[in-house]
Structures are given as structure tokens and as C-alpha cells.
């Protein structure tokens, strides 16, 4: 990809992460976008492109109006919910690299706890004869209605095939919460958990316990992308976008790709992984820390396998002994992840990647040169590598 190492994230901004923001999502989007501009050291009037999730309910024209952007030359949306965080950045990077826009704003803002509870699933969803709505007819009438239950179906099969256990999933939650415990921005700041806490937490959708599931959060995260040349004029150390990729694989469904010969891998993440490694010339050994999308812990394991950090079915051994915690071989989700910090559809995980590159994370990993960030799993997805090296 010809924009590899040619663009950068130059500003990040977020609101506080909470269970009840007390403000509208539109307000949150505005505040986070202003904060990102301030962090980048640019005026909102310089922004001429916006790239957002199609799940985003706060229109780019409202943000543009609020921030007084005189003109937008580029605006786009990436579908499929949590699969989009690196996808929107890829759009931004391609736009600035091609010259269509100079500074592109990306953001995600919602009250997914105090307004609509995101985890409640699709029980009352819109009915229509359109293909997207019909796709739920194969699952909703049976009570398979929530993201947790959709992921649980994969998890049961993964456990069966590879001998992984609920405790293996729990180790991801323990690592996330350990990192959140030392991150003042995290909702679960100073609230670590033990594996026993995880095992004792109530069932949501077996084999998922409550503590296998990410939070529902109120909050917003925004960032600014521009070319590397412009980035060099700004004061922050640029988080260079080594590569950013999207992925859909054969016989893809939304959260329910249950009809493939094998359902223990995440082939769409494999599509992303191959592009990222090929475009950057990097491999698993070159990554010092990663944000691995963690809406539900079981799907963290096959992501590690898709990227080649370990072999197929071996993630349970890879994550044992604190290897994914600070001080381990591959610390992941050093902000606390979506279980510990907040669930902002992965955008807060991208921001943590930027901080690790800048050297400003509260849980800084030493000598970081390359950070992997992944998007939501079981959906059409995305991933990116941030790097210090142009």
C-alpha cells in the first residue's frame, strides 16, 4: 500500500469515560474533536476531511458546523460497528496521502450505557424485507440476540478443539484490569481483578462470564490524521501509520460466520494481518506492544494466532504466565482495554497505541518502535501498525 509510512496520527483527544456522561453524544463528539485539534496543535478550520463509523450517530456535518470548518472535501463512513477503528484511519490516511484532503478528523462518540444499552442486543430491532434485516432471521427467533451470545458460539467450539478453558479467557480480563488499575483515565482505575473474581462472576452467555465482556461506556475519542510531511511541522511526535488494512473473508457474516469449514480462527483478521506484515516488512517479533480488540475475551486468543504471535490453538499457552501483561513478552491493552478503560469501539485503543509510540502511556512499555492495533472481531474488521520509523 503506497501510503505505508507516509501518514501519521498527529492528535488525540477524548472525553472522560463513564457510565453516565450527563451530556449528549453530540456534545461528547464536539469536545473530543476539539481536544484532538488542540493536542495536534492545529485549528479546527484546517480540517477538511472526516472519516467515521457508519454506526456513528453524530453526523460529520454537525461536528463541522460546531467547529466552524469552512469546507469538507472528504467524508466517508465505514460499516460494521466495532470492526471499523483502523478502517476509518485507513480512509483518512488514503485521503491525505492522495491529496484529497489535508487534515482528516476521525471520532466515535456515544452514550452506550446511559442511553441505549449496547449489550442488550437486537431484541427489538427494525423489521424489513431488506437483506441486512433478514440476516437476523436466522438467529434472533432462537434467542441468539446479543453480541456476547454470538461470540460465545465461537468460544465453545474453540475450547472444544484446542482444550482452552474459561480460565484462559479470564487471563485476558485479568491483564486488562491490571493495566486499567494504574490508568487514571480508566473506568476501572485502581480496581484490578483476580482469576478467581473472573471465575466467580455470573454467566452472561456460557462460556462467557460477566468479566469476559467489555464494558458499556459513555464517552468519545477523536484523532487527527495528516501526511508525514505536515506532521513534521507539528510539535507532537507523529505516530506514523506503518500500514492500515481492512479485512473480509470468505462466507463472512456479521458476528455469526458460523458456516465456514472451521470457526475457531478469524480469517478476516488473517486478511488484515497479511496486509500489515507485507506492507511494513515487519513480523510478530518486531511488535513491542499491541491493542488487541477485546469486546469479549475469547476472541483475543485467535487474533494472536492470526497475527502469528503463536501457532493455531496455542494462544492459551502464549498468554499464560503474565506474557500479555506489563513486563511480559507482549503487553496488550496497556490502557486497560475495553474491559478496563472503556468501550469506545476500539478508538481508545488506537489512542493508546499513539501514546505508546510517543512514550506517554501511563503504562509505558520500554523502547517501543512498533505497535499493533486491531479492530473488532467476528465482524468485517481492520487493523493498523503505528511506528516510530518512517
Amino acid at each position, binding site marked *: 500500500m503506497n501510503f505505508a509510512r507516509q501518514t501519521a496520527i498527529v492528535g488525540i483527544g477524548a472525553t472522560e469515560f463513564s457510565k453516565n456522561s450527563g451530556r449528549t453524544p453530540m456534545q461528547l463528539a464536539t469536545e473530543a474533536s476539539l481536544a484532538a485539534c488542540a493536542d495536534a496543535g492545529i485549528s479546527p478550520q484546517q480540517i477538511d476531511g472526516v472519516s467515521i463509523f457508519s454506526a456513528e450517530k453524530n453526523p460529520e456535518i454537525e461536528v463541522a458546523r460546531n467547529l466552524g470548518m469552512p469546507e469538507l472535501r472528504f467524508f466517508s463512513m465505514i460499516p460494521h460497528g466495532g470492526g471499523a477503528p483502523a478502517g476509518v484511519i485507513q480512509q483518512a490516511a488514503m485521503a491525505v496521502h492522495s491529496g484529497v484532503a489535508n487534515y482528516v478528523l476521525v471520532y466515535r462518540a456515544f452514550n452506550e450505557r446511559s442511553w441505549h444499552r449496547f449489550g442488550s442486543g437486537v*431484541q427489538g430491532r427494525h423489521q*424489513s424485507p431488506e437483506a441486512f434485516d433478514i440476516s437476523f432471521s*436466522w438467529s434472533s427467533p432462537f434467542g441468539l440476540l446479543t453480541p456476547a451470545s454470538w461470540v460465545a458460539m465461537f468460544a465453545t467450539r474453540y475450547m472444544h478443539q484446542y482444550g482452552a478453558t474459561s480460565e484462559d479467557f479470564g487471563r485476558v480480563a485479568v491483564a486488562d484490569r491490571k493495566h486499567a488499575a494504574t490508568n487514571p483515565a480508566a473506568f476501572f482505575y485502581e480496581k484490578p481483578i483476580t482469576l478467581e473474581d473472573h471465575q466467580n462472576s455470573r454467566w452472561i452467555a456460557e462460556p462467557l462470564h460477566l468479566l469476559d465482556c467489555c464494558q458499556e461506556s459513555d464517552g468519545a475519542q477523536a484523532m487527527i490524521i495528516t501526511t508525514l510531511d505536515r506532521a513534521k511541522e507539528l510539535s507532537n511526535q507523529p505516530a506514523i501509520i506503518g500500514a492500515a488494512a481492512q479485512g473480509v473473508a470468505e462466507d463472512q457474516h456479521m458476528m455469526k460466520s*458460523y*458456516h465456514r469449514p472451521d470457526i475457531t480462527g478469524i480469517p478476516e483478521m488473517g486478511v488484515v494481518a497479511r496486509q500489515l506484515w507485507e506492507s511494513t516488512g515487519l513480523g510478530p517479533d518486531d511488535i513491542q506492544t499491541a491493542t488487541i480488540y477485546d469486546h469479549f475475551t475469547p476472541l483475543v486468543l485467535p487474533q494472536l494466532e492470526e497475527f502469528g504471535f503463536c501457532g493455531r490453538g496455542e494462544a492459551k499457552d502464549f498468554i499464560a504466565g503474565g506474557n500479555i501483561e506489563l513486563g511480559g513478552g507482549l503487553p496488550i491493552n496497556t490502557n486497560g482495554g475495553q474491559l478496563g478503560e472503556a468501550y469506545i469501539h476500539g478508538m481508545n485503543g488506537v489512542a493508546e497505541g499513539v501514546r505508546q509510540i510517543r512514550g506517554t502511556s501511563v503504562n509505558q512499555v520500554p523502547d517501543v518502535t512498533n505497535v499493533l492495533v486491531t479492530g473488532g472481531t467476528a465482524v468485517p474488521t481492520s487493523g493498523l501498525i503505528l511506528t516510530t520509523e518512517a
Partner: protein
Amino acid sequence: MTDELSAEDEAFYEQLQSMVGLTGSPKTARDPVNQSTIRNWCDAMSEANPYFTDAEAATASLHGQVVAPPAALNVWTMPGLFMGHQPGRDTKEPAAITYNALAAAGFRGVVAVNSDQVYTRYLRLGDVLTGTAKLVDVSPQKKTGLGVGHFVTTETEYTDQNGDHVGSLFFRVLKFKPGTGRKKPVDAKRQALIDAGLDPDEVMPEQPRRPRPLPQWNQDQAWHWEGLRQRELRIQRFTDDGTLMHPPANSNPNTHSLEYDYIVASGRATLYSYTVVHYPQVPAFDYPNIVGLVELEEGVRLISNIVGVTPEQLSIGMPLQVEYIDTHDDVTLHQFRPADPPRRTTTLKRGEVQVGDELPIKVIPVTTRLVVSGALATRDFQDVHHDRDAALMKGSKDIFMNILTSTGLTNAWLGDWAGPDALFKKVVIGLGAPNYPGDLMTMSGSVTEVDADGTVTVGYKGVNKLGNHITGTAEILLPKGA
């Protein structure tokens, strides 16, 4: 729990007590043990032991001739169907005297609660049975879930045409006053209201159940949903290369052909993966809700509910069988239950069975047809087992399975596990929640004792949506090893 009794109740109980010990006159069966009745019985119970119906196999067996299923012990002397033109029942029978006295006092409802059968020998074609019943106990008035009532216990000894003992039956029924029972099971929420002195039915009136999320379709998938209405599981097939697709597609991904029809799947499948959903709870479903990823033997997978099992009974790879459920006026869904376990044709030998061995579970769909045909096959013409109007009038929500059918189904399941040469010695059944049409009964059990003489004791239960329909034990003699 015994309630405070009035003087009238006490006097009535005295009267009932005076009947204990009454022995009726011997009753001889109207017909000898015969193949036609055995065959009907086996058909209704899905009993497949060839020694009951296949003269050739039976002659070569340990029995040397066709024998009757032991669980049919008390079928032969059943009084038959009286429509008014036959001689009436013998009202001097101790059970009849007691039942009539109770009915006259308002205890019109009746349910069987215990049936212990002891088999001295298997019955042969031509045997003529005589049963002699004795009233052995009448309980004080008890408050039960069904209503206020008395338990009445009789013991019947059966002899053959030579006067030799062939078996005995210990039988207990509850005679109750319809409408005096608990209106609903008392869960924690209801109990809290009762404890607070409130009437739960007033505080939490029953709401009509919200329907499940409605499936939507257009002309691309309508044939699938129309098939379900007809109890057919239709799977898309591209006609050029036979590719099966589910969910259906608009083009064959291999050839890009647009031409397709469908096959009707056999309904045989295995469990590929599953989840047990606990939270959030949507009112349309029972929780925990088991949702499976089911792999049809034709090779495609679909999402469905797994019914008739507890989460602990699930295992990946378990064989499944399709069932159907009407969820809306014009929508039928598929659901899957565990497939029937294989029938053993080579009998288990002594030493092949250990204490703790689990029996394969069997899920029996309780249909109106099974309840009625089971009642008729066991020659039990009590109206509550075949006449819905009569059952409603007597305080039941529907017709319900008779205990002889439950016993027959249990023995058929046990026989499938043990094999044709296993000899049933004794089957003890306690009856709990009724088996109403539309439910599923799941049989499960394990070996609790293995005696040196080859007798194996199995503890078992049959569970439906309301709880334990039957619990009990069976003693089965296994043949010596080779």
C-alpha cells in the same frame, strides 16, 4: 403438610380408615395375554424387544416363546371401556369403595403417584391373569400442589390360570379436591409477596407472553419458512453442482449459477457448538436458553434451540433430531432435541456394568397422540387421559399421560440400554409433575447398585418443563458373560 382439620374431616378420615384391610374378590382378565394387545402396547411405547412380537426370535431366546412386556403386568385385568351398555364396575372393590366415598365428599380429582411393579415371571401368550386387590393405606388429609386430598394405596397380587404368582403391584393415587391447590409454582418473587401478606395474583397478574422476535423473509427465502410450516426443513441447493447453502444465497458462489431449488433435510444432525444464554433475559424465552450451532447430516449448519436437555447434558458432537414449534400464527421454527439413543441388540453382560455408569438420555416428545394411544394401549380408559373436556372439568389443564404409559416408556428405554435378554425384576415409579401434551420428557439415569447375582439397579428420572414427571428405580437381571 397436614392442615388443621375440622371435626367433620376427622370423622371422614375415621370412615376411610375403617376400610383399610378390605380385600376385593379376585378379578380374572376378560381375555388371555394375547399378541394383538402386546403389539399395540409395543407400538405405543416404541418398545422394540423382538421377544415380545417376533415368534422366531422369541423361540430362540431365553424365554423359548413370545412373552409380554413385563411393564404391561396390570394391563390384562384392567376393567375395560364402559360406555353404559356393559356391566358396571364392581363397586365392591376396595379401591372403588374408597374412591367413591372420596368422590362423594368432593375429592373428585385423581392422579396416580406411585406404582411399584414386581415381576415373578414374564407372561406368555395364553396366560389368564387374576388380580386380587387389597386396600393397604389411606392417608390423613394432606395439602398438595394439586389440592387438598388423601393418598390411597392398594396392593394387587396377580396369579396365572394355575394359581401361581406372576407379579404384584403396589399402587398409590391421590384423590383431591379440584381447585384447592397452588395456583402457580411459588418462586422467590411470589413467596416474598406472600410473606408480605399480599396476593401475588393480584399484585403480579399474569401477562400474556410476548412473542419471540419475528423472522422476516422475502421471496429469496420464503420457501424455507413455508417448509417449516409444513414440518419440512428445506435447505437451498444449486441445481448445477448440488451445492447446499445456508443461509440461502442468490448465486452459487462456485459457479455463479442462479438456478436453485431445495432439498428436505433428514433432520438428523450433530451439535457443532452451543451457548447457554443467561442474560439479558427477553420475555419470549425460557432461561437459561440453549442455542446450538447444529450441523445437519447433509453438511450445512444452522442456528437453532436445543430442547429437552439441561446445559450439563450438552456435548459437542451429540446426535440431534429436528423438532418443530409454532411460535406465531404463521411461523413455525425448527428446534433440535437429542436423537434417540441406539438400541442395544446384544445384551449387556454381568461385569460390563459398573456403579455410576450413566444411561444415555432419551427425549420423548409428549404429544396428544402419545398420551391417548398410550392410555388405550394400556387399556386405561380414564377420561383424563383421552378426553380434554373431561380433564379440564376435573381440574387439570389438559389431558395427561397415565402412569402405565410412563412405566412402559421407562421400561422400553431401559430395555434399549440393557438389551433384549435382560430380565426386569422390579420397577418402582414415583409420579410428580404431569406429562401434558406439548412438553418433552427427558429420561436420564445411572447405575446405583450391581449385585453379585447379576442384578443391576438403575436410578432414573423423567423430567419435563414442570419438573420431575417420574423418579424411580429398576432392578434388572443381566445374563452371565460368555
